[in-house]
């Protein structure tokens, strides 16, 4: 079968009796498995890592599971938005799941991640749960920001996930600052600052990269190149769309962002590099099925053929499904069952999130400051509504 031809499996310490494996339930084996990435890495002023990625059956199945949860969450968010339960901006990540999942597999929770507004799946990857995600989208108390942030402002500080930023490009210097703190405190950890091809031309990115290189900060700049900055194709926005080379004096790697194993390998490589040598740029060649946001159909600047073509040829979840089936890690029926369970899990989370109440009106005035000194704050009519900030 075609998938098997693509995959060159190095016969490492694999458990015997393939037939026995297939007869059992979904493989939870942690025996190492080596898979080749779909394409080799292209690099800029650095030797690229090997195409051979070490993984395990259990990890591959986790990839399938986690990406499927993300996919379902984003599709459900689409429906909720159309039902007007989600308001304002809603930027969906479906198609790009491999970046969030592959990155998480390569790092620990001591490493930091910061991204822009397409952040729902990154939040999940960092240990966020579905209920708090949906509740935040619907502006409820159970939301991860208690309903005060919205789609673009998810955070999980205890997992070193720093959001969740609405200003294009701002998250990159912030991410270099997170790396600065890691170096200042002599932690052996790194920061992944994600941005899109649209943000890649921002001046502040180059300012932060310059300082990061001078001060050897453990910063990994990850360009999630989905080829469109809102409605503007990369070739119309960037004189040089080879984003992995744009660091100039900073090394870079171009990665197939739809291949979760390639993403894992690249992130592992980048983390080691950044801690030892300073900043590195990763360009993830990825794709978003939805438009820029729910206000954008996404088909006025792209053809439907292009979108369906990517779905057929490069979908990250389908790729992993083929890998699982090729290696007999699970049967098609088992995967279908998993997907059914995930659907139910997502539906249950939405139901639970809907039960969460809207914020108490007092929340208008909370968290303006950490320390408010008893200062007064005001509503629209200060003779009607004022509060003391604790």
């Amino acid at each position, binding site marked *: 079968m075609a998938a098997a031809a693509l995959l060159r499996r190095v016969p490492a310490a694999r458990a015997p009796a393939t037939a026995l494996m297939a007869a059992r339930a979904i493989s939870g084996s942690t025996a190492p498995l080596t898979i080749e990435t779909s394409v080799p890495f292209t690099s800029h002023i650095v030797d690229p890592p090997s195409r051979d990625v070490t993984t395990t059956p259990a990890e591959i199945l986790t990839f399938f599971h986690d990406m499927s949860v993300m996919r379902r969450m984003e599709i459900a968010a689409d429906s909720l938005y159309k039902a007007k339960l989600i308001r304002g901006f809603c930027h969906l990540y479906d198609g790009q799941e491999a970046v969030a999942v592959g990155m998480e597999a390569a790092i620990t929770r001591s490493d930091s991640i910061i991204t822009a507004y397409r952040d729902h799946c990154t939040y999940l990857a960092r240990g966020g749960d579905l209920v708090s995600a949906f509740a935040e989208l619907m502006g409820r108390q159970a939301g991860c*920001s208690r309903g005060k942030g919205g789609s673009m402002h998810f955070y999980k500080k205890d997992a070193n996930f720093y959001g969740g930023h609405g200003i294009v490009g701002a998250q990159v210097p*912030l991410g270099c600052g997170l790396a*600065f*703190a890691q170096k200042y405190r002599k932690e052996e950890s790194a920061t992944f600052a994600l941005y899109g091809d649209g943000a890649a031309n921002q001046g502040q990115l*180059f300012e932060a990269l310059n300082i990061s290189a001078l001060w050897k900060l453990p910063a990994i700049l990850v360009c999630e190149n989905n080829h469109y900055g809102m409605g503007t194709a990369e070739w119309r926005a960037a004189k040089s769309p080879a984003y992995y080379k744009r660091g100039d004096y900073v090394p870079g790697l171009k990665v197939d962002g739809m291949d979760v194993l390639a993403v894992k390998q690249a992130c592992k490589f980048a983390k080691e590099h950044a801690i030892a040598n300073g900043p590195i740029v990763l360009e993830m060649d990825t794709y978003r099925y939805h438009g820029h946001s729910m206000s954008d159909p996404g088909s006025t600047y792209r053809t439907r053929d292009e979108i369906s073509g990517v779905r057929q040829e490069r979908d990250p979840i389908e790729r992993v499904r083929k890998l699982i089936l090729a290696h007999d890690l699970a049967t098609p029926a088992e995967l279908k069952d998993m997907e059914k369970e995930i659907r139910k899990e997502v539906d249950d989370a939405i139901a639970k999130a809907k039960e969460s109440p809207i914020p108490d009106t007092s929340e208008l005035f909370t968290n303006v*400051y950490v320390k408010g000194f008893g200062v007064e704050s005001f509503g629209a009519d200060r003779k009607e509504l004022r509060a003391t900030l604790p």
Partner: protein
Amino acid sequence: MLGAARRQLGSGPMLGQVLRRLRPATAAAAEAARGYSAAAREMTVREALNTALDEEMSADPSVFLMGEEVGEYQGAYKITKGLLDKYGPDRVLDTPITEAGFTGIAVGAAYQGLRPVVEFMTFNFSMQAIDHIINSAAKSNYMSAGQISVPIVFRGPNGAAAGVGAQHSQCYAAWYAHVPGLKVLAPYSAEDARGLLKSAIRDPDPVVFLENELLYGESFPISAEVLDSSFSLPIGKAKIEREGKDVTITAYSKMVGYALQAAEILSKEGISAEVINLRSIRPLDRAAINASVRKTNRLVTLEEGFPQHGIGSEICMSVVEESFEYLDAPVERIAGADVPMPYAANLERMAVPQVDDIVRAAKRACYRAAPMAATA
């Protein structure tokens, strides 16, 4: 000016006021009170800021400095002199001339719990970084419902200097004080500089600390308590620099000195002016301002910055909202001219408030002005 400062700090009721505004009285403070008329010590604003930075860096290893020329050059205005030698290049960081980049980096470091003190060579250059000050720093605690707090200080000279022209002379107090989530402080004296900077660095929220280049070299008497490394001044509290009963003059930064000079002139003409040194622009000490106006019934707001939508506008509104019946005259406003700052010395002089302007406005508020020209 210095003479005026010495005179009012040495007198009885003023001294009491000063001491009440400091940390709870200690034996040292009592001793200083007794020996006060002999002026314990003098300190320039520059030295006050330098010692405050030094002491806070010594007390807390997570405090670090970042900015252009703060290290090897010893500071463009020598505020950070000696700190690189003492704390090393890991904690005193010279940056390239890239405000957007380094401010973003500092805010990111603050997200992780470090305590950066970012220097803008002047606040005019803060506009290059203003997105990070407002959107990345000020709003984060709110948007994250308290998860991401930002214990950062942005400091540097603000407002007009001398002959530096339009792009280097703007006052940003109104811009930053507009934003919920920020705290905005404006010291005047050496005591203000020490106490407020220490509070700013210890504060868990983002603080914009507006200094003034022309005040750096000015000397003020200070007490032993101010010299103590644990000294700090509360954020959000104004100081009555000079008590009076006929008219209230609010001011901040350099204009406090001008207001005190005006008060001296007015006193010779039988008008007793109360001068309020705001110290804190956000939070604004509305209670102190209103209490003063309820006593004097007249108000002159004074600021160096552009007049439209300025600090005086907010103060006037606060008084109208809370103390309208107490006003015996319309609120008067003295501010910088509503033009970009010119270079020529005579034009520059017209673009910034002078003591005469403050005296004239106070007299108008007291209905002691020369009759105004009739308007059509």
